[in-house]
């Protein structure tokens, strides 16, 4: 009964889902349902194929001369600025930190050098960082760094498809308890965020992101 009611609500949204106009949270709810309901999936499939047909009628026009060259240049630029971020060695962590810390330093009144170990004087010689990949269905969708200190900080970068919406960050602690430490926006798949932690860094064993609907999006396990 509840199942059928759920299906009715979802089906109401399927045309807009197929046309790609559903907003982040609504879209996530539909996708979530489709992964568990073959009847609604079949209906969605039909709507999606109809939309495919419709888009064949989209107007065409020749772009201005030089379009292709400018596009390739633009891609080169975006590659350069992203290259460091995507490296999986220690420098990646540092780059992530430096980028986030630049904005953060203004808020927190601390120097970037203090946050990025090895590039400046570290507090009492022992700023410990732990980092982990943020994973969703086995895919790497970002990075989480927890840095010790008073207070400890959590840094997060997200590259999650083309998803948009507000997400909450929940940390798990030793003993299994959880705590929400804030929320931020992901726009077109991208988001970066940092927040002070109300607990010592060593207490944190993991972090997860949830959509506004409460649906878990991604998680990271921090080894201790």
């Amino acid at each position: 009964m509840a199942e059928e009611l759920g299906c009715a609500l979802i089906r109401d949204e399927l045309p807009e889902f197929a046309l790609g106009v559903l907003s982040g949270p609504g879209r996530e709810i539909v996708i979530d349902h489709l992964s568990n309901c073959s009847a609604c999936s079949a209906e969605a499939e039909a709507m999606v194929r109809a939309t495919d047909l419709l888009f064949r009628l989209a107007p065409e026009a020749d772009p201005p001369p030089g379009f292709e060259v400018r596009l390739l240049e633009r891609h080169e630029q975006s590659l350069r600025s992203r290259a460091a971020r995507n490296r999986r060695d220690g420098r990646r962590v540092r780059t992530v930190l430096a980028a986030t810390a630049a904005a953060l330093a203004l808020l927190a009144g601390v120097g970037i050098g203090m946050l990025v170990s090895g590039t400046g004087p570290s507090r009492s010689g022992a700023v410990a960082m732990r980092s982990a990949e943020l994973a969703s269905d086995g895919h790497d969708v970002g990075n989480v760094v927890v840095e010790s200190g008073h207070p400890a900080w959590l840094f997060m970068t997200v590259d999650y498809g083309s998803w948009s919406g507000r997400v909450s960050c929940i940390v798990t602690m030793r003993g299994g308890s959880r705590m929400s430490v804030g929320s931020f926006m992901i726009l077109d798949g991208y988001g970066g965020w940092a927040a002070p932690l109300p607990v010592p860094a060593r207490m944190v064993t993991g972090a997860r992101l949830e959509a506004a609907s409460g649906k878990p999006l991604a998680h990271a396990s921090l080894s201790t």
Partner: protein
Amino acid sequence: MSGGEAVSDSRSDEALLAAMALDDEAAALAFVRRYQRRVFGMAKAIVNNSALAEEVAQEALIRVWRHAPVYDARRGAVATWVLTITRNLAVDAVRLQRSIPAEPDELVALGLASREPDPAVRAEESVTTREIGSALRELPAEQRRALVLSAYYGLTASEIAVHESIPLGTAKTRIRAALQKVRAAVAAPGGLSPAAFTGGSDG
């Protein structure tokens, strides 16, 4: 530059995307050549300004390139994915001065008129395109309007409801009915008769 070189790479859209995900520049170039007319055309139809349309079209293609690894065929054809990204960027670009066209249908006519004379590889698609065009023309005007506003201008049912001063349920019903008819017209054996096509300016 016309789309003449666009068919030089015979790989499927999906194969090109997969190669782009591995940073294959040749694949990316082939993909851009295949799609630039559609992406730019979509952007221009929405923002109605050539410079801004180029900005939108470039950003859309960059995002396609960047997100190539996460393309999901279950959510639609590659073309739908690419054009949805383009549409959303275009709509965002003009959101502040956004005016919904008095005659959204014009975009359908523009779409039909702007197709290049089809090379052999697109012959089959062109038949289907005519069928879709016919199906759209035969829709009740209010259904066609709702569908075009949603598909090409990115409006949700509730935005359409406000814009058209109709209940939300009515807006949803119009979109659904229109989408189902488009599908039925093409799914029917042989589709609609080409003779039923009364297209305007595409000769």
